């Protein structure tokens, strides 16, 4: 068989898609949340004229600009990955999912891109009202984009509303059924909430960092930490509830995925245990060193301690997903979800005792949990995508039959190029973001196009700089 470094073309194509999409997913997850956060900050500033909100707006706008650029360029790659590595899938499923993706471009990408320039550079040019409108359009655009692409993804998980044509292509029969397929509402709610929660923890982590570094009196730092902790306290429990609903929906439509998530190789007649730990051995079809709580899985999934739950022993071997990956990525996601809930509750307690800005252990916890949302999002993504295997369109088209007629060396070489370049490029981007985060939001926070560091002698005259910061101090004059 044609291989490259021991992998065949299908495996390499899966690795390439998984790698590029997982990397891409990080940026929209942050920019969906940040776009809304920025719109809220700008609205609060216009409403209250409180300088702290403008300061935070400008501070996070710089981070948003970098995140958004990384999301755009890694996203262009995605729109071509389908054809380059999965041409058979593109040909067969294109008539159904292609239009949804075209709608994503038409309703979301243009909206975001068209108003982004005005949002970032246009405050002085268009006035506060239109600038606010641009901020809202960018935020709405990110959410619309997520809606369409999650509809596509959900359709691949729970396909319906199509027939199969003479040439093997899927023919759309009922667009309503295709778009609002059974898993879509749950996945959309769960993923959008995940994006907001991810952003809340990043903002909270940055706030905590500056609180720990003695910026307790900085109103920008206080405001961002407080807003982030409200989000954590309210949204983390909501997310756990939504995740549970999503899981129950998956049990109904993709039972094999839930079996893999739970590590249930064997069926349980009278209540299935919730395994906390174990080492899945797919060869032997058993969960080794399992530690579990009896009957809890039945309680969670069926809301009945004694409900029977079928296991992977009811699924033919060649239709089982890779259990170990799904089992572990699911535990990482759920574990982080509960840790987020813990931080949220901790913050409520500190707030109640009026120690929100003084509770060092809360700040340390929030700092450590800063990137937790990103990890949870990727873990959740892996759970649902690997759990769909061995199908690319669940129950209809196998992954092994969907890839391009390309040699393993072509796919392997391009995979290496993607890995190397993504780490260099996005590594640098993350470094720049961390550098921006390292500075506390200051009075008269600068805009996007002013450069960092002390080299600011040429091109900017101190007079104007004074005027600008003056305007920031006394916003009511502008």
């Amino acid at each position, binding site marked *: 068989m044609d291989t490259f470094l021991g992998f065949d073309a299908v495996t390499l194509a899966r690795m390439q898609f998984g790698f590029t999409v997982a990397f891409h997913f990080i940026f929209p997850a942050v920019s969906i949340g940040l776009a809304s956060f920025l719109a809220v900050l700008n609205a609060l500033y216009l409403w209250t004229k409180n300088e702290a909100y403008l300061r935070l707006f400008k501070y996070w706008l710089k981070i948003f600009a970098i995140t958004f650029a990384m999301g755009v360029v890694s996203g262009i790659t995605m729109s071509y990955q389908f054809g380059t590595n999965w041409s058979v899938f593109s040909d067969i499923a294109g008539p159904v999912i292609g239009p949804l993706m075209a709608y994503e471009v038409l309703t979301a990408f243009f909206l975001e891109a068209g108003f982004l320039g*005005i949002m970032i550079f246009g405050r002085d040019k268009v006035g506060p009202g239109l600038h606010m409108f641009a901020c809202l359009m960018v935020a709405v655009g990110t959410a619309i984009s997520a809606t369409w692409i999650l509809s596509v993804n959900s359709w691949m998980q729970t396909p319906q509303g199509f027939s199969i044509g003479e040439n093997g292509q899927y023919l759309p029969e009922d667009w309503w059924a295709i778009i609002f397929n059974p898993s879509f509402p749950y996945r959309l709610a769960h993923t959008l909430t995940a994006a907001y929660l991810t952003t809340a923890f990043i903002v909270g982590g940055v706030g905590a960092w500056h609180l720990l570094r003695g910026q307790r009196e900085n109103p920008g730092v206080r405001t961002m930490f407080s807003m982030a902790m409200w989000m954590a306290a309210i949204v983390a429990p909501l997310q756990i509830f939504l995740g549970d609903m999503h899981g129950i929906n998956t049990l109904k439509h993709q039972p094999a995925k839930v079996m893999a998530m739970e590590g249930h190789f064997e069926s349980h007649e009278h209540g299935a245990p919730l395994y906390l730990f174990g080492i899945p051995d797919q060869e032997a079809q058993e969960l080794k060193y399992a530690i579990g709580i009896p009957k809890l899985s039945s309680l969670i999934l069926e809301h009945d301690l004694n409900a029977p739950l079928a296991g992977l022993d009811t699924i033919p071997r060649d239709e089982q997903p890779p259990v170990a990956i799904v089992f572990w990525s699911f535990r990482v996601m759920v574990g982080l979800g509960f840790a987020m809930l813990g931080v949220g509750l901790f913050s409520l307690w500190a707030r109640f005792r009026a120690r929100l800005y003084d509770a060092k252990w809360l700040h340390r916890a929030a700092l450590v949990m800063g990137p937790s949302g990103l990890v949870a999002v990727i873990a959740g993504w892996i759970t649902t995508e690997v759990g769909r295997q061995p199908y690319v369109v669940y129950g209809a088209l196998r992954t092994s039959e969907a890839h*391009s007629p390309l040699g393993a060396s072509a796919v392997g070489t391009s995979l290496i190029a993607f890995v190397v370049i993504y780490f260099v490029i996005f590594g640098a981007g993350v470094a720049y973001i961390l550098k921006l985060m390292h500075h506390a939001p200051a009075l008269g926070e600068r805009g996007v*196009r002013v450069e960092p560091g002390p080299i600011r002698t040429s091109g900017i005259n101190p007079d104007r700089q004074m005027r600008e910061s003056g305007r920031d101090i006394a916003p009511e004059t502008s």
Partner: protein
Amino acid sequence: MFYSIDLTVAWALLLAFSVFVYVVLDGFDLGIGILYPFFREKSDRDIMMNSVAPVWDGNETWLVLGGGGLFAAFPLAYAVIMPAVYPAIIAMLLALIFRGVAFEYRWRASSRLSKRAWDAAFIGGSVTAALAQGIILGAFLQGIEVEGRAYAGGWWDWLTPFSILCGVSVVVGYAFLGACWLNMKLEGEIQHRVRVMARAFFVATIVGIVAVSLATPFLGAGYAARWFGWPQIALTAPVPILIGGIALLLLRSLFHPTRDRLPFILGLVLFALCFLGLGISIWPLAIPQEITIWEAAAPAKSQLFMFVGAIVLVPIILAYTGYAYWVFRGKLDPEKGYH
């Protein structure tokens, strides 16, 4: 079905339109990256980049619409073309990543060395993306081997002298558009230098257009018959004549001391005519010599569903994109930039 035929044509035209919009918009914006090596001063480079900073992102969205629209309306063509030009597509995507992030990273880099590195990424990315786009066009024109519903050639078939000629022509053509854009947006001494550069790249662009036009008929019998057969020649002959006329007007405008917008507008017309010429060579094929647009078309239901949205949304998109350009209209103040 009667409307399915109409829809397929409509989609082909709509996709051609979005590719054209992409070519002219990202053309001048990639062109600025291609021109970067000729401007060594940091302040020059800053203002050049700032002239497109608010709009580059929207410009590249038309490429996503081109790819996504091809996938949706002509899935078979998408599934054949992508593997056929695989390395060129991957190179273009990676190049666009380099230049796209350079817009943001350049302002965040604090050391002289890293600033230089992102300048290099901007240049390399812009040149490579333009070259790859031209090569993809050349590979498409020279024909793609198809068997059944899949690409059947090797993974280096796209690389020929003709495709490289197309690649180089696109690079100089984009540089020309970029210079015309800058001529419109800048003033003073730098504008003067840009104008000189526009003249040089204008000559190179015309050489490229002539070379590609002369080589195309030799690629296969089909092209020669389309252009020179009777009676089509009555319809095709005006295209090169118009190109010649526009070229003369352009040359005059590039030497006119106060016409700042005219060269850019005429440059767009020049590109539109070349695009029309390509249309004459290809229509109505989705893969030259192999697959027609009707054979490659998605089912009527898919095309109709999208078309309803596109007919409403594309004008709205054009309206707010135009508005964004209008907000940032006029000459750039080198002291200020945008922030």
